[in-house]
Every structure is written in C-alpha cells, then in structure tokens.
C-alpha cells in the first residue's frame, strides 16, 4: 500500500495524529455515553421521588373522588409553567382501575374520563401493561426511542388500589441538554486536538528528520555520491545517536579504504611503469654500449672518407642521446655508497642559487640533518635538486620557496613548498608518471625519477596542492645497507 511507503516525515506525524484523533474520539464517545446514562438515571431517580410523593398524597382525594384536589396536587408539580428542565414531566395523569383518565395535566390530549383503551397508540399499550402484575415498585414503559418515557406508580394503600399515577417524560427536552453536552465535548475535544496535533507534528518531524537525513546519506554513500560528513550531529545517545555514530565511523573507514586503494593502485601502476621502463632501458642499454664501442673502434682504425666520418659522428651523437635518456630511466640508487652529509646540502644550495637569483626568488632554507641516518648522498642530492628545480620553474618571479629538512618518524622529512597556481586534478593524478610535464619544454622525467628514487629508498613522496601553495613532501627511512 502507498500509505506504508510514505516517508517517516509524514508517516510518524500521520500515525500519531490518527492515534490522538482516535483517543479523543474514544474518550468523547465514552463521556457522552456516560452523560446519556446519567441523564437516564437522573430521570429514574426524579420520577421515583415524584411518583412516591404523589401516590401518597393522591390516595385520599382519589378515594373521595375529589378530582379537583387531585388535579391541583399533580399540577403543582409544574409550579405554574412547564420549563425546559428535562427532569420535569411533560404530563402527569391518573388512570382509574378500569383504564379511564381520572385526572390529567393535559386535558386537551387526555380529557377526563377518556378511555385509554380507545385512545390507541402508546396509551392502549400502556394500559395493557398496567393490567399486568407489577414487577417492582413502578413500571417503566418506553414505547419507542423518540417519543415519551412513562413511569407508572400504583396509588394504593393496604392493597386498596384507587388508580395508577403515570408520569410522562418527553425526550424532546432531553435532546437539547444532550446536544449541549455533546457540543461541550466537541469543543473540549477540538481544543485538545488543537494543542496535541501541532505538538505531534513537531515531534514527528523531529523524530523523522535525522532518520530521513541518514537514509539520504546512506543512499548517496552506496551509490558513490557525495559523502560529506553529517551536517548536524544528532546530539543524543539513544539508538538513533548510536546509528549516526556508526554511520560516521563507517564513512571514515570507507573513505580511508578508498584512499588506500587509490594509492595502492597508483603505486602499483608506477611500479609497473618503472619496471617496464627499466626493462626496456636495460635491453636498449646493452646493445647501445656495443654500438658505441663499435663506432669508437671504427673511428680509431681510421681511413674513412670524410662523409663517412660525418655520418659516424651523427650516429654517435644520436646513440649518446638515446643513452642519456635511457640512463635517466634507469634510476640506480643502491650502488651509491657515500652517506649524505651537511656539506651535500650546502652543495645543493650553492648549485641552485644561480637559478633562484635569476628569477629574484626568495629561498627559505631550514635544514637540520640528524646524525646516523645513513642515507645515500647522491640519491638524496638528486631528489632535492629535482624538487628545487621543479619549484623554481613553477614559481613566479620574486616569490618565495621554502625548504624544510628535519628528522621525522625515525627518518628524514624533506619538504619543498612554493607559491604557485594550483595543479589541475587530472594532472595531479599522473604527476609521477614519466613524460608527463606540466610546462612547455619539460621532458617530464624529473618527478618520475624522483619518485623512483624515493621508492627505491623505501620512502614515500606526496604532492599536495592547497590554495596558492604547492608542496612536495618526502619521507625517507633510515638507511640500512651500510656495509
């Protein structure tokens, strides 16, 4: 059913509202029923009281056939006028033992001496019931729901019965009083509803909002959409709060896992590319050495025509360029035995200084090299130079370049940061791949070589781009292969 598929935002207030409505209706109905029963009971008590008094006082006048006295007695009940009081009878009359009207307060409807048997309708039925032996102290006769209620009391003393007193109550006067009660009930009920329904709506919304929010987020998370952290944290530690906490934890874990996977993928890719490049470089390098040696031998032997000499030179230069490129691809760090010292760092600073000066940049140099790190000097120098050159080229004239070198996590942290326009994300992803260059004229091997070196040293390199600052951070573990 559609109703059950509704959002909690509507379902909770709707169900709550229905429950409140049902409760109010049920309570109102119960109260009205009680009021109706009370009205009936009031009527019985009143009729019994009045009947008791009248039957006692009526006995003597009826016995003496003093009908006027009897009439005055029953008529006194009305105090001169019929009011809307429902407890007051509409009509009182006395029936003789043979079923004739002796006295009646409504002579127009029930004239004196009229025979009830011949009047028909309720009266015929009433007089028939009067002939039956009486079960209690009085007879209650209600011919139909809408008309009158009759209470009949025998007028007798010591089994001498002179007639029957009948009190007729109209239900027409019942209705306005009952209607008044009902109206009152409806008013109070509406007031209660007016207070409870908005409260219920507010409470339902409050309950549903976090749930709805959570559901939306989870849907987004599952479908790989935005995974922003919950906008407002649910402050309470109930089950919902726990759910939120679990969701937050799960989201963090998922994000970390995804990041890790991405890194792993990148690392694997770079490693694969590195292996491929190294393999090709190696395969190319071997015959290249032979070819260069042959060329050399050929030139030393001499006797070659001029143009052949020129060609040989051409070949030699071409092969040498191939060799340089291949050598750049073949990153070798482990066979370098010298340990990095403070002098190496000063060398790098000296080497890079002209470049920095040329672009009027400011070099902020903070280095602290701890002892006993045992890192290979050549590789480290290469890494630092590569990063610095990269920074100098990326940085505009007059801007600042920062170099930080410090011990970190048992190894060495090396950070080069500079002011630069942000690196586009699509470029960021392939930053450390060969032949990927961010500027015109670059061969795109600088960062690649740096990456390979860092990896070979068992370290890690990260590039971050935050606002106007680009930062490369390298961490190298303590060297272990000192002979």
């Amino acid at each position, binding site marked *: 059913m559609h109703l059950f598929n509704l959002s909690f935002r509507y379902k909770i207030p709707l169900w709550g509202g229905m429950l409140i409505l049902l409760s109010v209706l049920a309570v109102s109905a119960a109260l009205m029923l009680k009021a109706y029963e009370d009205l009936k009971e009031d009527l019985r008590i009143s009729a019994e009281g009045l009947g008791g008094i009248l039957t006692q006082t009526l006995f003597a006048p009826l016995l003496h056939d003093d*009908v*006027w006295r009897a009439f*005055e007695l029953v008529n006194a009940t009305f105090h001169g006028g019929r009011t809307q009081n429902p407890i007051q009878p509409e009509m009182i009359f006395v029936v003789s033992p043979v079923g004739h009207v002796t006295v*009646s307060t409504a002579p*127009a409807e029930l004239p004196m001496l009229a025979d009830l048997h011949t009047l028909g309708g309720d009266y015929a039925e009433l007089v028939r019931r009067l002939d039956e032996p009486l079960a209690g102290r009085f007879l209650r006769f209600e011919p139909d729901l809408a008309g009158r209620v009759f209470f009949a009391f025998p007028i007798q003393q010591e089994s001498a019965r002179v007639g029957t007193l009948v009190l007729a109550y109209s239900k027409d006067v019942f209705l306005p009083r009952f209607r008044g009660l009902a109206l009152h009930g409806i008013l109070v009920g509406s007031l209660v509803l007016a207070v409870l329904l908005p409260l219920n709506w507010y409470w339902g919304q409050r309950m549903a909002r976090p749930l709805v929010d959570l559901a939306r987020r989870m849907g987004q998370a599952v479908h790989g959409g935005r995974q922003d952290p919950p906008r407002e944290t649910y402050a309470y530690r109930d089950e919902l709060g726990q759910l939120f906490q679990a969701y937050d934890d799960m989201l963090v874990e998922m994000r970390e896992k995804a990041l890790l996977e991405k890194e792993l993928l990148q690392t694997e890719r770079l490693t694969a590319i590195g292996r491929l490049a190294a393999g090709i470089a190696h395969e190319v390098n071997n015959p290249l050495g032979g070819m260069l040696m042959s060329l050399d031998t050929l030139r030393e032997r001499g006797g070659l025509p001029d143009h052949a000499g020129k060609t040989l030179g051409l070949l030699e230069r071409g092969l040498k360029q191939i060799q340089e490129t291949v050598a750049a691809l073949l990153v070798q760090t482990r066979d370098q035995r010298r340990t990095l010292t403070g002098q190496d760092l000063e060398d790098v600073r000296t080497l890079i200084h002209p470049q920095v000066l040329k672009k009027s940049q400011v070099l902020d140099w903070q280095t602290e090299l701890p002892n006993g790190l045992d890192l290979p000097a050549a590789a480290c120098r290469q890494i630092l130079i590569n990063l610095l050159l990269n920074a100098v080229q990326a940085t505009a004239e007059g801007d600042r370049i920062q170099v930080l070198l410090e011990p970190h996590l048992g190894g060495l942290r090396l950070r080069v940061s500079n002011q630069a326009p942000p690196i586009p994300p699509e470029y960021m992803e392939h930053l450390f791949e060969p032949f990927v260059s961010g500027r015109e004229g670059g061969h795109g091997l600088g960062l690649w070589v740096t990456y390979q070196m860092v990896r070979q040293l068992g370290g890690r390199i990260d590039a971050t781009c935050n606002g106007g600052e680009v930062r490369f951070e390298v961490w190298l573990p303590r060297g272990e292969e000192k002979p």
Partner: protein
Amino acid sequence: MNAKPATLTQPQDVSVSTPGRRDFLRGLSAAALGLLPAPLLARPAKHTIRIGFTPAFVHDQHALLADWRVYMEKRLGLKVEIVQRDSYRETMDLLRLKQMDFAWVCDYPFLHLKDLVRLMAVPLYKGQPLYRSYIIVPVGNQKATGLKDLKQTVFAYADPLSNTGYLYPRFAIHKMGDKPQDYFRKTFFTWSHKKVVEAVAMGFAQGGAVDSYIWETLDRIHPELTQRTRIIQRSPEYGFPPFVGHRELDPELFGQVQNFLLTMHRDPEGAALLKRINLDGFVRGDIHLYDGVAEMMRVFDEH
C-alpha cells in the same frame, strides 16, 4: 435572650386567624353539649372582632386582605382578625359555633343562616347590590351557547353552598326539565370561583359555573386566565353576597361595624381599598334582595 417579642407574652395578641382543627372540634363538641358560654361573651378581649372571608370574592389576594385588616383596625379602634376558610360550609360552621362575629358570605348560605345572622351591608358592584352567575366553557369550544349544550360533559361547580356556582346552574337544568344530578357526565367542586375559571381555562372541565363579580374581577387582574374561557350563559341578577353579623352580637358593635362599611367609600383610603377589591361601596340592603335565591331554593326544598 430575655427580650422575647412582646406579642408572645400577651395572649390576646396571639394571632388565631387560622384556628386549628382542635379549636374547631372543641367548639363543635361544646356547641353540641350546649355547656360552654357563648364565645363572644366569654372572650375577655372584647375589642377583638373576627371577620370571616369566604370564596365569595377573590380571597387569595392576601396582601389586599392584610391592608383591609389594618385599615379596619385603624377606623374601628378594634383588634380585627380575618378568618379565611376554603368553603362556605366551614364559614357557616364557625358562625354557628360563634367562632366568628361577622362574615362575608354568599347569598345562598345567608338564607340558610338567616335565623342566626343579621344582614349588615350589601356590597355595591357596578353601582348595584347585584350580581349573577356565568356559565363558562373553554375558549376552544365555540359551539356551545348555553347549559343545554353541556349535557354529558365534565362540569365544575364552585361550592355546594354557592348560589352562582351551584344553585343557579342546577336550577337552570331543572327548568330545562332535566335532573341536575344526572345531567353531566361528571361534576366536581373546586371550592372557589377562581378555581372554576382555572379548571375551565385549562380544559380540565368542559364547563363551569362562576360568580360574575369574580369572573370580571379576574378579567381585570388576570386577563390571561379569563381570556381562555368564554361565557355562554348569564343568569338573572341576584342579591350580592352580603356582610352579615351574628345575631347575638352587641348591637353597638354591630352598628359600629355596619357604619364603618356603609361609610367606607367616603374615606380616600377606604375608597382605594374598595377600588382594589373592585367594589363601589356598601348599602344597608334588604332581605328581599334575595327573594330570587329563595325561590330557587324552594325548588330544591331547601327554603
């Protein structure tokens, strides 16, 4: 605590305007034995007079009666007690038992009592000491034109000792050749002319006989009641219910009270009271005023 009301310490001041059943019984037995002296002579407070008012007028105007009593005391210099009874019979008994000095009675009982009481004054109604009987029906009954149309109905009489409320209608039926006791399907007494009007107005009785003076006075003060009735027959005029005094009364006292009544209309306060009771004044009257009633009584062998 000691300051009891003075009236309680003076027996002659105690109001006995409504003597209880015991007094009545005592008086009855005393009269039967003829042992006790006449109350009028025995009563130490001889300046207290008792006047009986009967349903001959609209006797539930209690405020009017109270004012009447105060006025009488002032004019006569006597203590006045007003005794009210619901039937002529009781008033007559009280007169017989000498429990009452004066009474305003109906002309019919007056004739019954003519050996016991003296005619003192006859009220003037519309300038004449006369009134009549009205036969009335509920206003819803537009067909009836007289008693002849009320055969086999429920009929309300005022009092068995009332002329206009009992004697006249029975006489009229008798004159039509019917027997009054069988003429109606049912009859009852209301013991008051006003209640006859009420019984007919409410439709409790289909017809009734009432004093013309009462009906017209009611018409003035309770028109909503009389408007629900319709007069279908008017009797000839009879002598108005008179004020009577006991024959054994001190003639001086009799004359004093008679004079008070006959001159009442000249005094502004008295005239105002008369206006309230819807009368013009009193005249000395004559026994022959009541010859018409006596004639009717003879028909029923009562005179």
